[in-house]
Structure formats: C-alpha cells, structure tokens
C-alpha cells in the first residue's frame, strides 16, 4: 500500500491511512442477541474504522458513476423508468436525529476526564470512571458546567433559541451498557429549540429538492444534552466485555423537522451539521471515528395526499414512519433511506400497510432489517430527575457566545469565493482540511502575495488583483501542497513550507522569472528539507535556503527562447513523431497538440520553454 516512488498515492487511501485507527472494534455477529442489543441502544461497540470519503471525491464519484451508467445502458430512460414513475407518485419524507459527542474536558455529571491524557494510563479500559458513572449506590450526579460551553455554541450555530430554564429527565431501561438503569436526558424541556439549517446545491442537495431556489432550509426542532452509554464488545458466543469509560460522556441530540424529501439531502444535512459543529469546536470527532451517529425516520405518502394523516411537531399529512437506527457513515444514511423508501413503496403499492417499527441497516445490505416491532416498543417511563436542579442559563453568557462565535463554514466559504476569487467547490474543499489551519495558511500567503505584487491602482483593480492572486494561491495551497502531503504521506503539522516561502515562489512565478514547472520543483525541494531549527543557539549546519538561493542553485531562472529556437525545437520533435503529426493534421485531434507542448518542455533545457508560447508555435506549424 505504501508507495516508495514519487507516483502520487491515491488520495482517499492516504487520507484513510492518516487517521489513527482507534480501539479495535469487535464486530457484532448478526445473531439474535446482537440484534436485540442493537434494538436497545444507539451503538455500543465502536464502529469499524471506515474509509474517509471527502465531499469533493464523493461528488466526483457520483458524477463518474452517472456517466458510466449512461454509457453502459446507452438508453438513459430505461434505468430511470423503473424509479421515476414510482417517485412521481410517491413522496419521501425524512427526519433525522443526530447524536454528537461534545468536546469537553469532563463528563456530563461527573468529574471523570472525557479524554485520554498524554502519558497516562487513561487509554486502558475502565480507567476514566467516576463512582456515579459506575452507579455505585448512593452516588449523586453533579452537573459539570463547563460542558455548557460547546453545547451552547452548537445551539447558537444552528440558530436555535436557548431556553433560560430546562430540565433533566430520566429515561429508564435496563441494559448492561446503562449502569444506572436510566439515562439522564432532557425529554420534557430541552435547552434549545426552533433552529434552522440552510443548504445549497454545493452541499450536495439535488436540483429536484431545490426547486429553482438557491437554498433550502431544514428546521431543527430541538437540541438536548444527554449522557452516552458504556461500550460493550461481543467476545465469544454470548459473552460481552463492558468498558465504562464512555458511560456518562456528554452528547447533544439534534432533532430535525421532517422537511427533508430526498436521500441525498438527508446525507447532505448530516454532513452539514457535522461541519457546523466542527467549525465552532463543539463536536470535533466526526462520523467516521464514531463521534457522531444518526438515526433517521422515513415515511412515504402519495403526492398530493396527506398520507395516513400522521404528523410530527407541526408537520402534518405524513405517512406511517419507521425508524432506522445506528447509521454510522454518510453513505449508510443515503443507502438506508433509499432501501427503506423502496421497501415502503413496494409494500404500499401491493396494498399492504406500513407498521411503525424500528429497523436496522448494515453496510452492503439491500434492505433494512426489522429490529423491534410495535409490541416490543420500550416504555421508557420518563420522569424528572429529582437529584438535579433545573438548568438555568444566563442571558449574558448566551450573548457573549453569540458575539464571539467563530465564522461558520458557510460564511468562510462565501468569503473565500467572493473576496478571494476561489470556486465554491475549491473553497469547500479547502475549508474541510486540517481544522481550518489550511484556510489560515491560504489567507496568510494570499495577503503577503497581494502586498508584494499588487499595484493598488484603483479599487476595481485591487479587487481584480486580489481575486487573481487568491485563485493562484488557492490552487497551490490546495492542489500542489495537498499533492505533496499525499505523496509523502505527511500531515499538515509537518508541512514545513512557510507562508513566506510559498509567497516567494509565487512572486517569482507571477513575475515570470520561473516557469510553473520550476516553481513546483522548488516547492517540492522546500517540502523535503528539514525545517530551520528554532533559536539562535544551534549553528545551522543545513540551513534552509531561501527561494532565491534555490532558483539560482538549480539554474531555474527563465531564459526565454527566441522564436527561431522554439521553431527549431518544434520541428525536431515533429520530425521524430510523424504519426502524431498526422493525427493532429489529418484526423483533427487537436488535443494531441498538448502532447507536443509537453515534449518540448521536457526536451528543452530546464527553465527555458514556456508552455503557452510553445503551444502557439506548434499550432502555427501544424496549421501550415
């Protein structure tokens, strides 16, 4: 898997390799007990480490797949016809419940640490457990107020109204991952209500859902804080190992209204919520690491009718809904919804009736499986927790957090697009890298570059220059540096190239002192070298050379060729490859001109051939 040559390793693989694989996941065998386990709680075992699929790759794969399908099937309508009539008649409605781990130092109701501290035994099982987490008789919960910080930020980021007073309630059920016999949650009075989330085409919402508008708004019913359960792992036929480290960890549950009408939008909503929560430092572990889990509620109804008249939180006229639990990746969300929608339509068209049941989904399955029917519905006997006083949140705190909120991902991307001239797709990809550190680097380099090469003649000119330099820096930070990081399998912490150095390279490029190829070479050189040691104490043996020094050392300064020299080189290559010349001249394959340009650049001396001029010369010679 590791490539020792400089051939670029597949991006998705290297990204997956960069993520540390967490505690080994023991997979649950699909036996009756395992299914019962799944039906009781959200997740107990940690998920299998999954491949991270970034949004850009996901969109590209979707486009490729659609193209391949068209090519293969030839007639596009034949594949669509099996789906289209049914979807013309039936409308899907989805509501999502997301459980996300809060980024805190302590657990929710005890002072046990929430994370493994460095150089400590905290990584082993049952090492971060307070007596309340283990439910020792007589222990009491103590609300840790620091957990409010990320929770409030999440609520504000999702535009919810923070309630001054909210309560804690007990949700009773027996399971070995719930030591107390109940989970403390906020059933009757959640701490935040009535929020919203806006998504556009660039978030992955399909055109049918947008209906001509630029964006859609998904309502968020409420956000509540609750405890997480312990981790259980199945070893052997019916033996389970229980680790209480996770018991009592703070979670927020984000419940959306049933405003979602397609599987792609549902996956986009989950993606967006994860990005928003990460952007405000509220929930920093993503879905692929088990820090975020989604349950979806799916129902269908005939278009124009009001289903069976069932309603949820003010949205009426819906069909009977079923719940799919334990979805642990974006793809799983989409696939499970598609499978469940198709199943429900099939049942209803055959004259059957949908039962309100709980279903499960496994990766690679074609249909959801039934976990629990109506008769197995659990009676949670919700009651207010008598050990805890109500949660009273001061308005000064909420106000302070509102004014000091970091920029949300939408605003960051819009800024990159409008102010710096990046494409929306590039802006989105840039913002997803390295917790925002890549955007910081980009903005630094862009501002340095503009300061040096900008002419600032007029406001209009400045805007144009800023967008041009922005686009240039964007390409280099995203694609060139990104490519180097992937090839050499290093993380952003070890990028070694500073913003100043990149600025110097791009200044040389902008002034046409070096070709793009030479610039890439210099960047690669800087990327490989050891970083300059800090402090003046060590006499630097291998000092980091400046960009100017590298240009001179590698003899990379552009020595432009004359027109005759270009022609001579072009004729040389054309004579050596008569077949290619024939292809361009007679068969009209204009694309092959670039091949000639490439050959000229390669065969010419380093730092002499400019591809743009070479192309002009070759086209002129070919045209005759």
């Amino acid at each position, binding site marked *: 898997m590791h490539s020792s040559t400089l051939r670029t390793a597949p991006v998705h693989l290297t990204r997956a390799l960069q993520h540390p694989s967490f505690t080994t996941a023991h997979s649950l065998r699909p036996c009756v007990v395992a299914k019962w386990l799944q039906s009781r709680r959200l997740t107990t075992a940690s998920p299998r480490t999954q491949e991270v699929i970034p949004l850009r790759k996901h969109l590209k794969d979707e486009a490729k797949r659609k193209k391949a399908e068209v090519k293969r099937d030839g007639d596009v309508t034949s594949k669509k016809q099996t789906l289209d009539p049914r979807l013309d008649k039936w409308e899907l409605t989805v509501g999502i419940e997301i459980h996300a781990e809060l980024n805190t130092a302590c657990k929710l109701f005890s002072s*046990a640490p929430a994370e493994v501290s460095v150089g400590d035994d905290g990584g082993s099982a049952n090492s971060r457990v307070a007596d309340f987490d283990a439910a020792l008789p007589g222990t009491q919960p103590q609300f840790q*107020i620091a957990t409010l910080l990320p929770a409030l930020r999440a609520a504000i980021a999702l535009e919810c109204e923070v309630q001054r007073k909210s309560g804690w309630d007990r949700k009773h059920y027996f399971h070995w991952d719930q030591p107390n016999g109940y989970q403390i949650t906020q059933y009757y009075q959640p701490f935040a209500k009535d929020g919203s989330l806006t998504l556009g085409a660039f978030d992955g919402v399909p055109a049918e859902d947008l209906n001509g508008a630029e964006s859609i708004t998904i309502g968020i019913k409420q956000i509540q804080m609750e405890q997480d359960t312990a981790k259980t792992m*199945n070893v052997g036929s019916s033996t389970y190992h229980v*680790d209480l480290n996770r018991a009592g960890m703070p979670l927020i549950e984000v419940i959306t209204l049933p405003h979602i009408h397609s599987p792609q939008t549902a996956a986009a909503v989950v993606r967006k919520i994860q990005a928003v929560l990460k952007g405000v*430092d509220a929930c920093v572990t993503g879905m692929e690491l088990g820090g975020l889990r989604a349950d979806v509620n799916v129902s269908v109804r005939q278009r124009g009718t009001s289903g069976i008249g069932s309603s949820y939180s003010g949205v009426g006229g819906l069909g009977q809904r079923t719940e799919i639990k334990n979805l642990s990746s974006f793809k799983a969300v989409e696939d499970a919804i598609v499978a469940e929608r198709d199943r429900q339509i099939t049942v209803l068209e055959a004259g059957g009736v949908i039962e309100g049941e709980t279903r499960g989904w496994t990766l690679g399955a074609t249909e959801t499986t039934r976990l629990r029917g109506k008769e197995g519905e659990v009676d949670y006997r919700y009651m207010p927790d008598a050990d805890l006083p109500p949660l009273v949140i*001061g308005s000064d705190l909420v106000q302070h957090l509102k004014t000091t909120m970091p920029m949300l991902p939408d605003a960051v991307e819009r800024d990159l697009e409008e102010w710096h001239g990046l494409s929306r797709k590039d802006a989105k990809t840039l913002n997803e890298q390295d917790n925002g550190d890549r955007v910081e680097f980009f*903005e630094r380099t862009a501002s340095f570059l503009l300061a040096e090469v900008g002419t600032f003649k007029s406001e209009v000119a400045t805007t144009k220059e800023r967008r041009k330099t922005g686009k240039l820096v964007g390409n280099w930070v995203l694609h060139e540096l990104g490519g180097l990081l992937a090839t050499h399998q290093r993380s952003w912490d070890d990028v070694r190239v500073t913003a100043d150095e990149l600025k110097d390279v791009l200044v040389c490029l902008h002034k046409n002192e070096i070709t793009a190829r030479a610039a890439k070479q210099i960047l690669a050189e800087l990327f490989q070298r050891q970083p300059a040691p800090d402090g003046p104490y060590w006499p630097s043996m291998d000092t980091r050379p400046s960009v100017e020094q590298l240009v001179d050392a590698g003899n990379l300064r552009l020595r432009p060729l004359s027109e005759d020299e270009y022609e001579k080189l072009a004729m040389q290559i054309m004579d050596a490859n008569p077949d290619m010349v024939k292809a361009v001249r007679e068969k009209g394959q204009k694309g092959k001109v670039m091949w000639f340009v490439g050959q000229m650049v390669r065969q010419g001396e380093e730092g002499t051939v400019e591809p743009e001029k070479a192309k002009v010369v070759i086209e002129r010679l070919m045209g005759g």
Partner: protein
Amino acid sequence: MFRMQCFHVLARSSTKSHRWFSSRPIDAEALLSKRTWSVRSLLPSTDTTPDSPQVSSEQLHHLLRLSALPPPKDPSEEARMLRTLSSQLHFVREIQAVDTTGVSPLRTLRDETTEGEQRNEIGLAELKDALCGEDAVGKHHKRVRRRRDQDGQKTAAETWHVLGSAEKLIGKYFVVEGGK
C-alpha cells in the same frame, strides 16, 4: 393535614394581636384524641368488589419485565400480586382525584424562590474558567479551540478502584454473560 391548618391559623392571628391566645387555652389532648381522618380511607374496602378496571395477567407480566423483576412462581403468587397491585391503584386513583388545577408538579424539594433561581443561574462569571481553557487560534481565520491536557494530576474520580467490586473480570473489562 389538620395540624397544618392549625398552625396556619395561629400564624395568621399572631400578627394581629394576642387576643386569640388570651381568650381560651388549647386542650391539645382533647383535640388530638378524636380521629377525623385515616389513610385507610384511601384503600379499597375489603368487602366490596372493585368496580374499576382490573389489571390483566398480561399487563402484570409486562410491568415485571420493565422493572426487571422476577415473574410470579405460581398462580397463587400471581393472584396475590394482582390483588396488591389493584389496591395500590385504588390508592393512586384517590390521590389523582385531588384538584390540582394551576399547580405545577413538584420535582424535588429545593429553593424555588427567585433568589434561589438566581443563585442557580449559570452565567458568564461561572464559566470564566472554562472560557480561559480555550485558545483563540488563527490570525486571519479566527477560531476557538479548547486546550487539551490541562490538568495533569489525577482527580479523585480516577483514584478509586473501579473494578474492585466486580464479581467477574477479564483483563480490565467487566464481563456479562448475555445468553438468553
């Protein structure tokens, strides 16, 4: 209940004058010798058959399963459980008959005054420490990030022997036999 009414009357009149006290002495013995109310009134009378809906055997088993209690060993024990449950439900119905319009349910005994709520309020001052535990990251692209690994010392939570009272252990895990 009767006693509470007494004290209420006393408290009210003591603010006006001590006229009530001086008029006649209270004979506590006489007052308390007559029973005016008994909790037995809230239980079903043993001779009459209850006309309220009965708890079925199925419901009983469902409730026992929810509470993780063992099912009855034989029909006589089940009949006993059903009888007890029935009289308990009669009691609950008597309680529910009390008019509670406008009264919000009691959750726990605590200070419900406005001062109490103010003391309980979590505001900026209370979260000052948590806010200090964060860094403002980035000059151009400003973000917040919680600082990790702040407290190196073990808190009290970590120093007790978590696995000490477990009957069965495998390595550092609690063990559960899940077979049905």
